[in-house]
């Protein structure tokens, strides 16, 4: 399968099944769609009004060379590996600990419903967290790297337990030959110098929630008494970014129907000095006023194009930043097995509620039919785990012929469930945005390779 497109003045050809990307000139770009169906003389006839015969024949030769090298028009051989893939042994290697089902902000788009996840307010005790880490170590087989995300609600509302759990996790590393990578996701309200110092020592990654421009942030992320939170958090976030030498953190925002010109929010964060930026589309029911709608897509695509072009420009000027959704590793990226299996939710990755229940991921918390066990009994419903394990790009009809399937790995299971009632489908609007982002990300690589 070949996917070709034009972006920011570049002609890009992606050979989906080999993963190879070619930047081509106009003549090659126009010969490629004809290459598999027509003979060379027919192609010359079809294009001789536009290009010289010499150029068309040269282009044909170069395309033939790529094909024989196995980097263009390659076949999908991976579906044959699916049975082997389904039989793979999985271990748990990551937990999302819901340290606090409570929050000191009242963000309007919160999928956790202001931290409470359709349930009650609660804080995780050290005992529950300790059992969760024990479960992780015990069920991680020979995996060395284990990830634990302190999530919420707002985890800093239960910071003492975070500290205790980090210390406990560290105490398990040597005896069990493990390495914990901790992540803290915070809205910043309770951040102070002591917490920043602790996070810099112990957290492999810190995710700082901020939406971009002050007026956009304050509209969607008010405090509980209705005031904006931007001025409260921004100075602290800048301190975090600088004290971590502008690495191993993200400022992470959400854009909605209310700010479809979100490239301005991304650039606002860049102009404030942040170099690791993630701003993502809200995912919510279509009935919400701020939901992304199908008719918003053309504007969103334009915004991604604009942002990608600006990113290239700034990188070339030496003042670049990373935009998470445009990051792509074309040379040292994940293996095919990872690309088939996706995020690992429900089998390699579990969310743990404050009272110790397991769910396939943070987005399923509160959906009782996905309650799959707890820290005392372990996995009590292995059939749920099995269902997630078998979910892959070939189990989804819409993914089979999609050029982006090896980059998104079939997309988010929770989004599929929320829009279609089961995990083997896709969130269609999300797919359209994902495809656009992949195109932009590849264009950026091509532009920076010049």
């Amino acid at each position, binding site marked *: 399968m070949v996917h070709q497109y034009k972006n920011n003045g570049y002609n890009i050809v992606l050979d989906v099944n080999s993963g190879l990307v070619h930047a081509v000139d106009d003549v090659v770009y126009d010969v490629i769609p004809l290459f598999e169906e027509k003979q060379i003389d027919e192609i010359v006839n079809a294009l001789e009004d536009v290009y010289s015969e010499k150029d068309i024949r040269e282009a044909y030769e*170069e395309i033939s060379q790529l094909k024989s090298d196995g980097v263009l028009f*390659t076949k999908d051989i991976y579906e044959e590996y699916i049975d082997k893939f389904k039989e793979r042994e999985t271990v748990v290697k990551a937990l999302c600990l819901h340290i606090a089902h409570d929050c000191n902000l009242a963000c309007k788009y919160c999928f956790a419903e202001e931290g409470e996840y359709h349930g009650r307010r609660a804080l995780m005790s050290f005992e529950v967290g300790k059992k969760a880490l024990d479960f992780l170590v015990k069920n991680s087989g020979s995996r060395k790297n284990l990830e634990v995300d302190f999530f919420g609600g707002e985890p800093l509302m239960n910071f003492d337990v975070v500290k205790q759990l980090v210390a406990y996790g560290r105490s398990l590393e040597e005896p069990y030959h493990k390495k914990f990578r901790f992540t803290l996701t915070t809205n910043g309200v309770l951040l102070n110098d002591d917490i920043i110092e602790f996070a810099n020592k112990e957290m492999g990654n810190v995710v700082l929630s901020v939406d971009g421009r002050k007026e956009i942030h304050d509209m969607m992320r008010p405090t509980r008494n209705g005031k904006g939170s931007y001025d409260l958090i921004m100075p602290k976030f800048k301190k975090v970014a600088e004290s971590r030498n502008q690495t191993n953190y993200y400022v992470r925002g959400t854009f909605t129907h209310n700010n479809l010109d979100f490239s301005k929010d991304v650039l606002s964060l860049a102009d404030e000095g942040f170099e690791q930026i*993630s701003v993502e589309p809200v995912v919510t029911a279509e009935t919400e006023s701020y939901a992304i709608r199908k008719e918003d897509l053309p504007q969103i695509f334009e915004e991604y194009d604009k942002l990608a072009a600006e990113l290239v420009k700034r990188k070339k000027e030496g003042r670049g930043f990373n935009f998470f959704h445009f990051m792509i590793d074309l040379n040292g990226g*994940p293996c*095919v097995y990872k*690309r088939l299996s*996706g995020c*690992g939710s429900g089998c390699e*990755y579990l969310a743990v509620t404050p009272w110790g229940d397991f769910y396939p991921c943070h987005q399923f918390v509160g959906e009782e039919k996905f309650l799959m066990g707890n820290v005392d009994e372990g996995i009590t419903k292995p059939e749920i785990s099995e269902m997630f394990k078998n979910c892959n790009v070939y189990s989804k009809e819409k993914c089979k012929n999609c050029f982006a399937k090896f980059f998104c790995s079939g997309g988010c299971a929770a989004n599929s469930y929320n829009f279609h009632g089961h995990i083997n489908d896709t969130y269609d609007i999300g797919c359209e945005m994902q495809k656009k982002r992949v195109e932009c990300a590849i264009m950026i690589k091509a532009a920076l390779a010049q």
Partner: protein
Amino acid sequence: MKHIKTINSQVLKDTLKKGGCGECQTSCQSACKTSCTVGNQSCENKNN
């Protein structure tokens, strides 16, 4: 080549040989909590 510049060299098929060790990051952990992005991750298999 005169008309084509190939941007990368990693062929997906080659990753079948030593792939699947599972040491890589869980996708949703890093920044995105509402989507699945895998192509941006790096392989952590030291044998590759």
